[in-house]
């Protein structure tokens, strides 16, 4: 028989409450257990929401840690990653981009710059390349130099002005179009909105005939310095370094570079960066 009191059907509500209690109890049990289990492990910070290269770079780290991998800490941006590193008491590593150490446009300290104590060592780097779709016959090196082409670049406060300066020297008639995310390049290349993109990673259906490096890499046909020796930033790369906290007894770089995750990485253009250079010199190259 149903018992109704103050509008509550006691029998039914008891059943419902029991179900809710079981669900909540299970959740409450899972959360602390999962935290406790990961107490001695290394957490990795992911600060890029967009997916793509940074995600892969930090995923190589997570995968190479194997059983020592703790949690993936997702924060909104590099500034939040720095705040996290300052506060955490657990072993934590992040793959930070080189430009986060550059001063802001107004000359002030970058909100994403790390203190020396959080610098671990350099991670990986790749030169930038000028790429185009293989199914676009009009995208030739000659067109890149002489025609009114559109070149898609990453909309970034540090690299953006460098790409503009480089393209102005290569071809003053070219228009440099900024895109916030790398995935937008692909859609723009497919849509024919741009003829070329400047990228560090060639996607399926793309080739990169010009490389901003002092020697040829991958499918490059010419280096940017051979194309235009006077062009500023004709040798320009993108690089990552490891930043971390509480990693005194953990050699992150050794773990990553010895792992299958790193050896089998999709981004083969990215190689170890500044190997054999002392940590002090690496740090100096970062802050200068």
């Amino acid at each position, binding site marked *: 028989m149903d018992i109704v009191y103050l*509008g*509550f059907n006691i029998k039914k*509500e008891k059943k*419902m*409450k029991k179900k*809710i209690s079981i669900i909540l109890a299970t*959740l409450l049990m899972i959360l602390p257990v999962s935290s406790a289990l990961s107490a001695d492990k290394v957490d990795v910070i992911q600060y890029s*929401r967009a*997916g793509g290269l940074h*995600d*892969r770079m930090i*995923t*190589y780290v997570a*995968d190479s840690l194997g059983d020592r*991998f703790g949690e*993936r*800490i*997702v*924060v*909104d*941006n*590099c*500034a*939040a990653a*720095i*705040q*996290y590193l300052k*506060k955490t008491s657990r072993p934590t590593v992040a793959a930070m981009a080189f*430009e986060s150490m550059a001063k*802001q*446009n*107004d000359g*002030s300290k*970058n*909100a*994403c710059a790390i203190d020396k104590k959080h610098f671990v060592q350099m991670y990986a780097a790749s030169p930038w390349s000028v790429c185009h779709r293989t199914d676009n016959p009009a995208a030739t090196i000659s067109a890149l130099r002489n025609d009114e082409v*559109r070149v898609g670049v990453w*909309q*970034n*406060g*540090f690299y*953006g002005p460098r790409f503009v300066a480089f393209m102005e020297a290569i071809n003053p008639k070219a*228009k*440099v*179009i*900024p895109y*916030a995310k790398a*995935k*937008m390049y*692909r*859609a*723009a290349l*497919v*849509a*024919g*909105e741009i003829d070329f993109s400047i990228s560090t990673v060639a996607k*399926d259906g793309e080739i990169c005939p010009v490389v901003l490096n002092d020697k040829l890499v991958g499918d490059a046909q010419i280096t940017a310095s051979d194309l235009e020796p006077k062009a500023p930033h004709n040798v320009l790369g993108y690089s990552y370094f490891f930043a971390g906290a509480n990693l005194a007894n953990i050699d992150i770089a050794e773990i990553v570079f010895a792992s299958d995750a790193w050896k*089998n*990485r*999709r981004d083969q253009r990215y190689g170890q960066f500044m190997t054999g250079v002392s940590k002090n010199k690496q740090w100096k190259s970062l802050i200068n």
Partner: protein
Amino acid sequence: MFGLETVIVFFAAIVCGTISGIMPGVGGMAVMLMAYPFLIEMQPHNILIFYVSMVSVDQFFGGITAIVFGVPGSSSAVPSAMEGHKLFKQGRSSESIMYSAIGSWLTSVFGVILILAMIPLLFMVYKVWNSTVQMMIFGLTSIAIIWISKNKIIVSVALFIFGNLLGKVGYDTYTNSSFMTFDSALLYPGLPIMPVVTTMFVIPLLLNSLSRGAKIFEFPGVTMEGYIESFRKIKRYSTTLIRAGFLGSIGGFVPGMSYGMSSIMAYTVEKWVQIRRGSYIPRKGNMPCLIASEGANNAGTFTQLVPLLFLGIPITVSEALIYNILDTRGYPVTIEWFQSTFAMIIVFFLFSATIGLFAAGRYVNFMKILNNVEIKWVYLCVVLFLFGAIYYVGNQTLAGLEHITITAMLLPIGLLLSRCDTMPLIYGFILHDKLFEVAVRMWILYT
């Protein structure tokens, strides 16, 4: 191909989708990250099954929390909270939940059919998806949001700009500069979405709601008979469903939009239609608007998989995570492999949507436990819960106190704006980076 692992994965996805739908701030991405240690051990097709089932169920439960408590679990549920909670206060709670759930299911099916019909044309769609088209869509949506708001135009414009400015607070890698941070570490990471939506949308909405409609929480619940009856009657909203299904589907699969934007777009268009017909009464809530926003959400959750399955492009962070897992484990992340999973994805999507439809009906009846409680106490609990959730979510990145501090700083502004329709502000906040980026590109392209 399918075994015990698939069954376990499927039901785990249903549970995870339920949790992420009910809990504000716990989005699909958070669940994917929590499930990451398990995902990396799974068979590749099971990873896709987990994701598609989880996001499908999430949408059904997220809508209910928005309707009953006025709390949007994510930015895509803001319109549902706006219209749905007003309907709830008018005593139309059961009807709202059933129509939005059934509408969502129908638009899910619509999304599947539309994509199947469009497969030969998909590549053409990407060929026309350029910055000009994006600017037109974002621009028209922004203008429509301002136009259809119940505020005076000038107030809505000001709120939209203010939302954009709030969105710009923090360090910006695109410009390598900081905006309105006052050299404070608290503000460098920018304003998190939960404090902004809570203080600028939920609290004004609940304060407005207090003075209107029912004073006692009254929810009769939903029944199977009610579902069948609503299913029979929903044809009266067929044009709304087609519009929402179409806009939701398109919004879902174009890069840079996502299903959150689909929901905003469908809601905006529907509200404009309702205003033109004279059937939109701001204080009472509007069923077609609710159905449009909820339906577009669900259509978009399916179609957002299309770029991944047909072009190998992950357009959401969760998809990027899946892509990375498959890639780093050496699985074939080729377009051919993704395409070969398409039929399976459709089956699991529709199956999980059907479970979501009925499971949501079961879950919502638990809320009858609050019947006869004064609504002001329910609201107080909702606000306290949200503050707790803000702290909890922030604390996941050791920034719980910072998020609470930001909430406290924004609260007086939210209270000042409690007589306004703050949706233009929220949309300005959500859309600011897309608008800014496309506007810069357009300027360069056409000058």
